[in-house]
Each structure stands twice: as structure tokens, then as C-alpha cells.
């Protein structure tokens, strides 16, 4: 009755969630079965088809060298999806270990971990990764490892807060009383109990990781030609824009955006369900 606009609680959007999940599943299946889906090779150069428009033959057109964009997108999905997966594996192995250690030991271990985290946070955006790439040279491996290192503090911080809450629960104390060692409790009980919320958090981070990795490839620091990584495809397609051919950049750009949106939609839902705090 008072003139207050009400914010309806955000409606659960199972439709968006299902669409996102279905789209991601489709992308994964198509990437795995790429040779069955498309007759072209990702690196097959065909100057006759240079900058070909959309046609039954080239479903999404072709780039300057006449390489079929649909094919390159499918093959590129492999690098573009496996890359973030690897970097999150590195980041979560490090981050979960450090975060758990910090929460379990407190005291100086905690202090050291949080100081290291502070220093890495002092580098805005991707600059820490850029520094590592500058030192160890460009390439997908360096980029993935560097991003893995850069994401570790974020995960460590999150793990630490979850682990602190978990350590306060009586079951941990009861194991301690039974004389079980700290490492055994952490590995066998603490980490498995945190797995749910950490995995939820990783889904949220996946989209971000994909964007970061694609950005590095776009800058020339990550995937190198002739890879069909999506970020690199945008970089290579850029010169075609001035010729009025937009497909070589729009197709991989749209692929990145759609996959990241899907992960974010799923991540938001998982976060809501598991009480994971968002980024």
C-alpha cells in the first residue's frame, strides 16, 4: 500500500538453466565428435573459399585462408574448454591445499598464505599472468599454468573461509579426540565435506577462466597458430573486419560469449542452491 516498488525475489529460472546445460552438453559432444560432424579439417586452407559467406557447404562461412569456421569452432572448443579445465585443476589443487592448511594450522601458516595472497591481489586483472608470460615466453602451457597460479589465491581464500566454518563443527573435534592425525582428518574428512561448495565455486570460476584464457590468446600470449582456439580465432579474424567480413570474428566471439553465459547461468543457480557466495 505504501508506494514502495517491491523487488520480487529473483524467480528461479529452470528454463534458462536447462537451456544452458543443454547447450553446453551439445558443445562438448560436438567438440568430441568433431570429425563426424564436419567434413573439413580445421587447418585445411582453401583460398577459393576465402571469406566465404554462410552457405550449405560452409555453415558459418570461412576465414581469410578459406578455413571452414564451423569446423574450426568445433575443434577449437577442445582447446577452449580443456584449457580452463586444466587451469582450474592447477588452481584448485594449490588453492584447496593452501586454504585448508591455513584454516587448519592458523597462526603463521595462515599469515604467510594471506600475505602471499595479498601480493598477488596487488596485481590488477591479468597483470600477474602477463608478468609470468613475459618471463617464461608465450604459449598455451605457460598461459594455463600462469592462470592456474593466479586463480589459486582466490580459491585458497574461499576454501579457507569454508574450512574455518567446517573446522568449528563438532565432528572434526571428535576425530581429533580419537587421536587421528591432522593430515588424515583434512584429507579424509575435511576436504570431502567441503567438496560440494568448492565445486559450486569452481563452476562460477570456469566462465571467468575461459574468458581470461581467451583474452591471453587474443593478445598473442596463449594459443599460437595454427591452433583454432577461440580467442586466437578472433585475433586472426580481426583484419577481415575492414574488408566487411564479420564472420571470422563474430563466430568465435559468439561462441565464447554463449559458453560463458551458460556457465554463469548454471553457476548462479548452483550458488543459490548450495549457498556458495558468488564472485
Amino acid at each position, binding site marked *: 500500500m505504501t508506494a514502495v516498488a517491491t523487488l*520480487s525475489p529473483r524467480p528461479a529460472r529452470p528454463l534458462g538453466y536447462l537451456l544452458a546445460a543443454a547447450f553446453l552438453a551439445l558443445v562438448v559432444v560436438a567438440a568430441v565428435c568433431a570429425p563426424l560432424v564436419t567434413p573439413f579439417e580445421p587447418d585445411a586452407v582453401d583460398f577459393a573459399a576465402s571469406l566465404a559467406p554462410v552457405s550449405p557447404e560452409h555453415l558459418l562461412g570461412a576465414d581469410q585462408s578459406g578455413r571452414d569456421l564451423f569446423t574450426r569452432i568445433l575443434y577449437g572448443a577442445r582447446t577452449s574448454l580443456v584449457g580452463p579445465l586444466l587451469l582450474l585443476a592447477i588452481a584448485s589443487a594449490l588453492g584447496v591445499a593452501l586454504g585448508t592448511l591455513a584454516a587448519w594450522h592458523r597462526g603463521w601458516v595462515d599469515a604467510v598464505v594471506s600475505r602471499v595472497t595479498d601480493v598477488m591481489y596487488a596485481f*590488477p586483472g591479468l*597483470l600477474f599472468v602477463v608478468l609470468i608470460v*613475459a618471463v617464461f615466453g608465450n604459449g598455451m602451457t605457460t598461459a594455463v599454468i600462469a592462470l592456474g597460479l593466479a586463480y589459486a589465491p582466490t580459491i585458497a581464500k574461499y576454501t579457507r573461509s569454508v574450512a574455518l566454518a567446517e573446522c568449528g563443527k563438532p565432528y572434526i573435534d571428535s576425530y581429533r579426540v580419537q587421536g587421528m592425525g591432522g593430515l588424515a582428518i583434512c584429507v579424509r574428512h575435511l576436504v570431502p565435506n567441503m567438496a560440494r561448495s568448492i565445486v559450486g565455486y569452481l563452476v562460477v570460476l570456469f566462465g571467468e577462466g575461459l*574468458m581470461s584464457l581467451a*583474452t591471453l590468446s*587474443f593478445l598473442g*600470449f596463449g594459443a599460437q597458430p595454427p591452433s583454432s582456439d577461440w580467442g586466437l580465432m578472433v585475433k586472426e579474424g580481426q583484419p577481415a*573486419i575492414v574488408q566487411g567480413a564479420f564472420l571470422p570474428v563474430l563466430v568465435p566471439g559468439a561462441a565464447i560469449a554463449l559458453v*560463458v553465459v551458460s556457465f554463469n547461468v548454471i553457476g548462479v543457480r548452483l550458488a543459490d542452491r548450495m549457498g556458495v557466495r558468488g564472485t
Partner: protein
Amino acid sequence: MIRKLAGVLATLLVTSFVIFGASYAAPGDPVTFLAGGKENLTPEYLAAVRAQYHLDDPFLVQFGRWLGDAVTGDLGRSTQYNDQVGDLLAARLPSTLGLVAYAAVLFVVFGIALGVLAAVRGGRTDAAVVAGTTFATSVPPFVVATVLISLFGVRLGWFPVMGGGSLWHLTLPAVTLALGALAIISRVTRQAMVEQRELDHVTVARASGLAERLIVVRHVFRGALGPIVTMCGLVTAGMLAGTVTVETAFGLSGIGSLLVNAINTHDFPVTQAVLLLMVTAYILVTTLVELVQPLIDPRARRST
């Protein structure tokens, strides 16, 4: 206050140490690395590099000299351009700062406006803003850049595609740089306003007959200002790093694209200098944001 400043100095020292020390982590002899690759290295040139970086001194002494030089403005000599790094930076900094300032104005004005609109209107407007910002944060800036160039630069021809200088040239890059920030700010604004609106003193103001518009301006928005200003500051601080992608995508000549070129050409003195500049600016701006807090929230004044 003094503790705070000491903390900032310590962070600056450690980060600059990391940036300096990184060259030693590189595989192989630091001389080859600092000289920018293995080709065309004459012994005389190597000796010059060795002397320039005082590589024969102990590690910490080298760091001290490097830092001392950096503080006094001597950032070394570029291996690629054969210029003083300081001159390179000075030539390119204005255009980058212009870009950041332009983008900051855009995201502050439109981000806050959208957030306020979403919080006040609610319903469909709110849902649209939330959906739009979710999408905006899911598209990496370089993709935004290519889309904007394709659409407004080439297809419609409204904006120049390459080059820089004028405000007109900077519009598409600034929009790209601002888009993600705009999404973040509008969400923070919306969230803070929704939280503030639930507070008792807002009901008290309403119960005293204050018009709804004034309640929003004087109480809800005023209360939300703290988190909004903090976030605007943090996002602006991070923007210098964001220029790396945007300048590359638009072919602008600024310190962001300078960094990318430096890395791709193994020009380590320039890389170090740009990183040092960006990190220093980031730390200083974030500190500034914290120092501004008491002006916005009188409750924070006591503790300082």
C-alpha cells in the same frame, strides 16, 4: 594512518621486488633475457647490458639500484625502440589516461543510473537490468571490441575504426572498457540500495511524510553511496590493466598496447616499467578509495 601508509609502502616494495625478481626466474642467463633474446648478441652489447643492470653486484644491491632509478624516473632503456623507457611511457600515457577517464565517466554515470533504476522501478526493469548485466559480464572485452568495430565502425561507419587522438576515436574503446565495469557498478548500486531500503530509518523518513523521490535521494541512495564509491574506485583502479586488451583490439597506441608489444618482442625493461606503473597506480588508487571512506560515512571517522 601511519600503519596504513607503512602497509602500502610494504606492498609496493614487495610487488616491485616480484616484478624485478621475475627476470631471474627466467630460464637461462639473465643477461640474454634482459638483452631481449639470443640473436645478434655481441660481447660488447652483453657487457653494456651487464653494466646497465649492474648484474655483477649482489642481487639485493641490484634491486636497490633498480628501484632507486625507477623512483627517480630512470626506467632504463628499451631493447626494442632503443629509447629511454621513461620517454616511451610519457609519450603514451596521456592517451591511455584519456581512455580510462572517458570510460570511467561512462561507467559511473550509466552504471549508477541503471542500478538506481533497477532498484527503484523493480519488476521488469529490474529483471532486464539483471539479465543485461549478467550478459555484459560474460562477454570478454576483446569480443565486445570486435563486435563494436564490425557494427559501428564498418557496417554503419559511425566511428573511425583505427587510430586515435580525438574523443570520437576513443568512444568505441571507452565503451568497450566501460561495459564490464558498468555491469558491476549497476549491480552493486542496485544491491546496496535494496539493502538500504530495508533499514528502519528509511521507514521513519517515510512515516514523516517525506516524498518517495526524496526518500530515495536523501536516504536510500545516500546510504548506498559508501559501497558504490568504493566499487567505482576499485574498478577504475583496475581499468589501467584493462587497457591492455582494449588498446590492442582497437590498435590504439597507449601503455596497454606498449606492454603487449614489449612482451611479444621480449623487451623486458619496458615490460617491467609498464607493470610497475600499472601496479603502483592500482595500489595507490585503492588506498585513496579507503582514505575517502570517512568522508562518506561519518562512522568510519572515529577509528582513524
